[in-house]
């Protein structure tokens, strides 16, 4: 093949790549765009226009039809600020507790020799393949017996032993924490807990960041468990409060979309803050470092 036609083929391949990426971006971003526009639309325009309401304004858009009412209504007509605080509290506590316990569990399974270690690892792996919805009914019954229904304890307790997290941290510890470092720390004078905090956790920092983000997101978006376990509206997180706007007889779509937009803002901020850790955590151990 002549060099000229070779470079043409390469350019074509590049163009095709960009076109496919652009298409993927469009497919991913269109719902976000729809959400963004819908949050600013009045209820009469909600179904009248798919995206921005058409009119005589700049770019053929009726800009005057857009409103901030949906945002003010979710804070005035609903106890949305309280719901945000509930969500922040639940997601943060779940993320922190779950990360610490998962890291400790993973560390123990990766670095300690003890009788029954393989058996426990087997249970962790078995727990990974049980679908979460299957655990709702027995979990509910257990929380009932523990008198933890309608309390945050009922939501936090199941997060204390996350099989997925334990497995993830075990793999990270195996790859990132050399035995000689632990030996060295023990000789230097570290106790086991001190060794974990001062030596082990900093070594798996990317995984800590990634897992914090994953559990924060999971808890923030968790709907089914708070919906079942919590009864008092004052304790509802955002996900449940937003869902309550839609009943069999009435749906405040403008408020739902505005609320959704408000609810994803902290997540976007957190992701931007932790994205470096998140990405390196997901790829840690993929190549020899």
């Amino acid at each position: 093949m002549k060099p000229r036609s070779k470079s043409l083929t390469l350019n074509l391949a590049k163009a095709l790549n960009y076109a496919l990426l652009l298409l993927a971006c469009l497919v991913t971003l269109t719902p976000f765009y729809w959400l963004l526009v819908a949050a600013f639309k009045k209820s009469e325009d909600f179904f009248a226009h798919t995206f921005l309401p058409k009119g005589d304004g700049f770019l053929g858009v009726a800009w005057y039809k857009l409103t901030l009412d949906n945002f003010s209504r979710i804070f005035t007509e609903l106890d949305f600020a309280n719901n945000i605080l509930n969500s922040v509290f639940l997601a943060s506590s779940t993320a922190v507790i779950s990360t610490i316990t998962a890291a400790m569990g993973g560390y123990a399974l990766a670095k300690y020799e003890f009788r029954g270690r393989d058996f426990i690892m087997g249970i962790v792996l078995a727990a990974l393949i049980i679908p979460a919805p299957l655990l709702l009914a027995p979990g509910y019954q257990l929380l009932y017996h523990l008198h933890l229904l309608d309390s945050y304890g009922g939501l936090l307790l199941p997060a204390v032993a996350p099989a997925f997290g334990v497995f993830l941290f075990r793999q990270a510890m195996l790859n990132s924490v050399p035995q000689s470092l632990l030996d060295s720390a023990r000789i230097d004078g570290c106790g086991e807990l001190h060794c974990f905090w001062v030596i082990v956790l900093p070594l798996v920092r990317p995984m800590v960041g990634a897992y914090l983000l994953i559990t924060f997101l999971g808890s923030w978006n968790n709907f089914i468990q708070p919906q079942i376990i919590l009864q008092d509206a004052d304790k509802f997180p955002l996900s449940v409060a937003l869902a309550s706007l839609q009943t069999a007889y009435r749906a405040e779509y403008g408020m739902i979309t505005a609320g959704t937009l408000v609810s994803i803002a902290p997540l976007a901020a957190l992701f931007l803050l932790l994205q470096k850790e998140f990405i390196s955590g997901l790829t840690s151990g993929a190549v020899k470092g």
Partner: protein
Amino acid sequence: MASVTLQNLVKNYGDAKRPLLAVKGINLEIRDREFMVFVGPSGCGKSTTLRMIAGLEDISSGHVLIEGRKMNDVLPKDRDIAMVFQNYALYPHMSVYDNMAFALKLRHFPAADIRQRVLSTAATLGIEEEQLKRLPRTLSGGQRQRVALGRAIVRSPKVFLFDEPLSNLDAKARVSMRAEIAKLHDRLQATMIYVTHDQVEAMTMGERICVMNEGEIVQVDEPMAIYNHPVNMFVAGFIGSPPMNFIHGHIATVEGRARFVEDNEDMDALRFDIGERLSLRTEAWRDRPVVLGIRPEDIYDHRRCTASQPSSGQYARVEISEPMGSETYLYLNTGAHPLVARMASNDRYQTNEQVHLRMDLAKAHFFDPESGLAI
């Protein structure tokens, strides 16, 4: 400083029914301020023994005593020891200064004292002040091992433990660190236990060498004593580079004189008169199979021998000649046995050339081929 005593020390990785013994009941007294080197092939139990002394490995049975005090149930941090690891084991998220100060901080030393100790240790080891602020990953292998050494020294422990600390370094850094550690021992006058599989390190650094094999101590002695008087074929073959040559044969009496005859079906088997001294020593082994051990430097080329050098000799064929710069290693074959000879640097040989060999049998060793023990 302190002595270290090992009493019937056993490490069993299996259980009572299916034992998997890494260390098989060893006894050893490491004297106060001594530089003891544990040497042996991979899997001989030397590192396991060191880890048991450090408290990093549980003791299956027996005792470890430091300064006469039983240490079996004492935590590593309370044994007053410091350890230098093969892969440096520096905390990657801490600066060089923090790595060196870490143990002192944990022991609640005053900040000013910590700073003074770290700076003076760094100066001793040639670690520049600018390097103290850097993270370990920005340092070369040699510099990292220097920091690991500094981290051990800064605490002034009773016993220093080294677990193959030079194995990850390149040849040049290894030689300079070898000298560094030897100087350190002279200066600190501390008890040091050094594990290596490299017999050159063992010979050059140790005041005494403990040769281990298959979980047992084979010989403990000063380096030259081990080199000159190995107790068995394992030690004879392990210590020395290139290793000792072993020639299977028997001692016959020919015309009233004791003569070693190589087991070789060819007509030109090696035959050497072994002299009066060796003849007396091997009297009970007449006409019985023996193994002759001869070091490469005790084999000479007949053409280059002076009158004072041994005169008995036979031919062997050159397989490979390796010029090393300061000397030439000559790989030979007698037809039944491979041999290595250490020749002068300017000696040149052709492959398949027949070389008339002479051996200094005054320095030869004889071994029992069944037990491997020296005769």
